């Protein structure tokens, strides 16, 4: 995500290399690059203009500290301003209401309200240990209620059925009453997608808001939206007292301009970002971390949190002990690592959060292939326990059998064994000389990293 923005800004630093200090003339080009980079990322034009002005004023006033190059100083200013633009700190959900705390979802058609409702329910249930009730007031789109019902079912979250014949307000009142009587902590109300210029529909959601008196009214916006996103956000904000924003589909591709402009325009914090199609793909929004990500500094904190959330601690410790004791790292361990990695959202999710310096050698399009991990798993699954523990015994005839079992070519089995051998060496190295050396040796060794 946001790669192109990062790339452009990296280019900007280069142009500033070798300059003694930041002056009006030498930051002119840099500022223009920032402007184009932001516009190409679909950041709203008024926001871009203000942002560039701000950066210019700040950068000119900046005396370059000796330890910093002008490029670094400039990036420092951009980072600071980006963080400010997106909201200074992360703001979680406020559920400080007499239960049930009501969360109302609003947004355009296809922005991802229903999926986000599901993800939010899961997040509240698992992270905050809340008893959550889901209800859909979307009586317009065919099968919208059904969609949320199925999501709720797969999340094992309670769902209150409604029908397309009921009025949205009646559904809302019914749900509120139900939630109260059954002691739910949180009630999440999904609504139909609507255009901000559709007066009848906007009146309806206003009525919903009145009936529910939600503690959180979240505006759901698609990260791929163009210049109009801010107008929509503003129009919704004018009708509804929004309390926050969810930016969805942020894993889609390089742009994410909406994330930059929406806070500025609505003055409401972005509370969550949706990534990935799986129901785990919801992250609390951390402005400073995203700013780092944009600037190519990586979002290592989120990566660590991801890992903590998904990685099986016991497994990890077992492996660490094994390596510490100098025991051989075998294919069984390798496989369990792959599984852990998959749980953390797969390679591509992790790559997004690594610093650009580490990932820049990997081709942008199709660089990371999560599927390759599945193939590797398949190959290992086709081996006997003996073979997994002592890969050395795998010779031609065993290779043939494994390849046939996994449905791959013998070459692929060979490649895996080679990769594994190198990894094994590295593990030994690590047990002796620590992590840094290992990272250096790591290039090209994870399956799925082409290039």
């Amino acid at each position, binding site marked *: 995500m946001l790669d192109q923005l990062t790339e452009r800004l990296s280019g900007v630093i280069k142009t500033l290399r070798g300059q003694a200090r930041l002056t009006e003339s030498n930051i002119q080009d840099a500022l223009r690059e920032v402007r184009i980079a932001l516009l190409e990322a679909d950041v709203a034009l008024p926001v871009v203009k203000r942002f560039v002005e701000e950066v210019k004023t700040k950068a000119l006033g900046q005396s370059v500290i000796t330890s910093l190059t002008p490029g670094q100083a400039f990036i420092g200013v951009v980072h600071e301003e980006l963080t400010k633009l997106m909201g200074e700190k992360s703001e979680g959900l406020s559920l400080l209401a007499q239960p049930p705390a009501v969360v109302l979802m609003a947004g355009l058609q296809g*922005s991802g309200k229903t999926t986000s409702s599901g993800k939010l329910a899961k997040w509240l249930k698992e992270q905050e240990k809340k008893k959550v009730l889901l209800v859909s007031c979307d009586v317009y789109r065919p*099968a919208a209620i059904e969609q949320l019902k199925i999501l709720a079912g797969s999340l094992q979250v309670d769902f209150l059925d409604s029908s397309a014949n009921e009025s949205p307000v009646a559904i809302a009142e019914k749900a509120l009453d139900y939630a109260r009587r059954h002691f739910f902590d949180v009630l999440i109300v999904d609504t139909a997608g609507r255009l901000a210029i559709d007066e009848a529909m906007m009146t309806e959601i206003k009525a919903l808001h009145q009936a529910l008196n939600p503690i959180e009214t979240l505006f759901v916006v698609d990260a791929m939206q163009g*210049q109009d996103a801010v107008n929509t956000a503003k129009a919704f904000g004018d009708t509804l007292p929004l309390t926050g924003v969810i930016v969805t*589909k942020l*894993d889609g*591709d390089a*742009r994410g301009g909406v994330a930059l402009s929406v806070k500025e325009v609505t003055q409401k914090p972005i509370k969550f970002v949706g990534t990935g*199609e799986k129901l785990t793909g919801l992250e609390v929004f951390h402005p400073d971390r995203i700013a780092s990500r944009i600037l190519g500094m990586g979002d290592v904190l989120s990566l660590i949190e991801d890992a903590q959330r998904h990685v099986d601690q016991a497994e990890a410790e077992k492996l660490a002990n094994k390596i510490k004791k100098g025991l051989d790292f075998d294919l069984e361990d390798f496989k369990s690592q792959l599984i852990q990695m998959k749980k953390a959202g797969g390679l591509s999710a992790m790559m997004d959060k690594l610093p650009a310096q580490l990932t820049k050698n990997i081709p942008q399009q199709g660089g990371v292939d999560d599927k390759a991990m599945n193939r590797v798993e398949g190959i290992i699954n086709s081996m006997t326990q003996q073979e997994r523990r002592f890969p050395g015994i795998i010779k031609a005839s065993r290779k043939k059998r494994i390849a046939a079992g996994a449905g791959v070519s013998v070459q692929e089995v060979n490649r895996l064994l080679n990769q594994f051998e190198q990894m094994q060496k590295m593990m030994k190295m690590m047990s002796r000389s620590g992590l840094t050396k290992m990272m250096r040796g790591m290039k090209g060794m994870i399956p799925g990293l082409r290039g």
Partner: protein
Amino acid sequence: MFSFFKKSPKENTSPAPTQEGWLTRLKSGLKKTRDNLQNKVSGLFTGRLNDEWFNELEEALILADVGVKTAQLLIKNLKIKAKEERVEEAAELKPLLRSMLIDLLSPLERSFDPDRAKPFVLVFAGVNGAGKTTSIGKLAQHLKNHHYSVLLAAGDTFRAAAVAQLVAWGERNQVDVITQEKGDSAAVIFDAIQAAKARQIDVVLADTAGRLPTQLHLMEEIKKVKRVIAKADPSAPHEVILVLDANTGQNAITQVKAFDEALQLTGLIITKLDGTARGGVVAAIAGECPKPILFIGVGEQLDDMQPFSANSFVDALIE
């Protein structure tokens, strides 16, 4: 010139939508775009030309999602033209900009001709929430109005209740929908084509699950869908359509490129032009990765699906 099917022999018997009606709808659909450009642009077409003026025009274009690259190109050419023709007043530039936009967009016009094959198979692809299923519903209605028999294939086997959504559309239009309890999209669509052959159906509209171009495994999956369709009928699919939300910003370019690479698109459908969306992204597509636009969605009504005309589009945009 605005007839729905240029070569349709059935056209005479069909209740063709009146020109007036849809042009008005397109205009009102694009009204916001126009307002937006107008606030900026028509106010702009006064006074004398200078660099500042061109900068303002560039910003107006960018605000309409035309994109930096295409906007800069348009401005560059406009400057050259202005010099050539010794234009000094901004007002005189309006027809020039208009004809430049029409030149840019007219290669995207293409007629839709479902009589080329029977069954005529269309596959719909796109990102999540672009409006694939709704577009299929509208197009099915349109085709039915023009006396084609239609079969829908519920190929979105991933999203919860996507099948139910398509079935609901089928019921509204009284069109049969092929579904499977469990199965992948390729299999469902294969079945639908076989069924269409057996039932002598004219057109098959195949839905697929929404996917982002960065989800490589899903892009592979949809390639497979296309391959399997060719197994059911070597000449199919006859149209591979990317459904694009008009609200999309510059990401639209990435989408068109990625889906084209995977599927060799034959056309686009631009949805949700009735909102505050600006048609500007269409110009960006024309500039950077032109693909014909088969239809545009300009309203919530079932029949608000219209063919794309560069002339009307530009008129609605800047007149």
